[in-house]
Every structure is written in C-alpha cells, then in structure tokens.
C-alpha cells in the first residue's frame, strides 16, 4: 500500500492513534512524551506510530492533516491536535469526553 494510503487507513481504522517521535514505551521527544503521559493517565488504548522510523511518514502525514509538527493525536479519524491542545483539553477536563470511544 502506498504510504499516504497507509496513513489514511491507519487514521480511519484506529479509534485513537498518536503519531509521535519514538514509541509509547520510549518517547524520543518531550512533546510526544507529554501526550503519552496524558493518554496513559486516562488509561486508554491507542496505536502509536513512530515517525522517526521513516521521515516520509511525517511529510505525508502533514500533507494529509495540515498540521506541521509532531506529535499529532487523532481520535475517530479527526485531528485533535498536538501537545499543546492535548494538554489544554486535559487541563480543561474536556479530553476524557473526546477520548470516550466506547
């Protein structure tokens, strides 16, 4: 499958997916780590994609999402945002409703 198709498929088929630097077990960037910590706090299951494994992922992903930086958090196929927005929604108490995919 072509990379951009793969990205679209991953975003649509995983209820929560985080594009990040590193993995959820070993984040390689403070901003990615911040989102991992927030998601861990809520105990939700999610797919992580390490963009460092293939720099092309980042290029194609940003073309798809219109979002230039990493991390990028998607829920139910929709871009929620990066680390700042995840933190802001978390602090406002709005993130759990967004992550509630049951």
């Amino acid at each position, binding site marked *: 499958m072509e990379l951009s198709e793969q990205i679209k498929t991953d975003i649509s088929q995983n209820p929560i997916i985080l594009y990040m630097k590193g993995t959820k077990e070993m984040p390689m960037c403070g*901003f990615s780590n911040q989102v991992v910590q927030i998601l861990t706090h809520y105990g939700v299951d999610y797919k992580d994609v390490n963009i460092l494994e293939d720099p092309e992922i980042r290029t194609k992903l*940003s073309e798809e999402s*219109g*979002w*230039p*930086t990493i991390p990028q958090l998607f829920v139910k196929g929709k*871009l*929620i*945002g*990066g*680390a*700042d*927005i995840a933190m*802001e*929604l978390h602090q406002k108490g709005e993130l759990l409703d967004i992550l509630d995919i049951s």
Partner: protein
Amino acid sequence: MEPNELKALIEKGITDAKVEVVDTTGTKDHFSAVVISKSFEKLSLVEQHQSVYKAVGAFMTKEVHALQLKTYTPKKWAEQNS
C-alpha cells in the same frame, strides 16, 4: 530566527492578532507564543493553531523546530486575566 521575526510573521498572517513570542531554549528555533485574535471566534482549537502555523508558513519545521501555542479570542483572554 529572532522572536521578533516570528512575531512579525504571525502578525502579518493574522492582521488583528496580539502576539507575544518567547525563545524558550535560547537557541532561536524553539519558541512559545501567545496569540490573541478576534478571528479565532469561529474556529475550533485545532483550526486556531492551524491558522497560526499557516502564518508562519514554510519556516515551520525548518527555522522553527517547535512552536508551543496558546491561542485566545479577546473574550477568552479577558476571562483568563480577570
């Protein structure tokens, strides 16, 4: 990039914006910005950040490695500081 250059870029893209930019690492490539604009009123949080990224344009991810953002409408900003 100097914080003032980044400030000018955002102000050029979002004409009514009040912008504060801080160089968070002293290395002129990691910044944090507060942007206040009436144009954010009809936008979601994601769209507000996207409009700032659009203003920074091609500098984003090149000269600007990281840009921490806080966006407010004038109303939200007033609430925040009351």
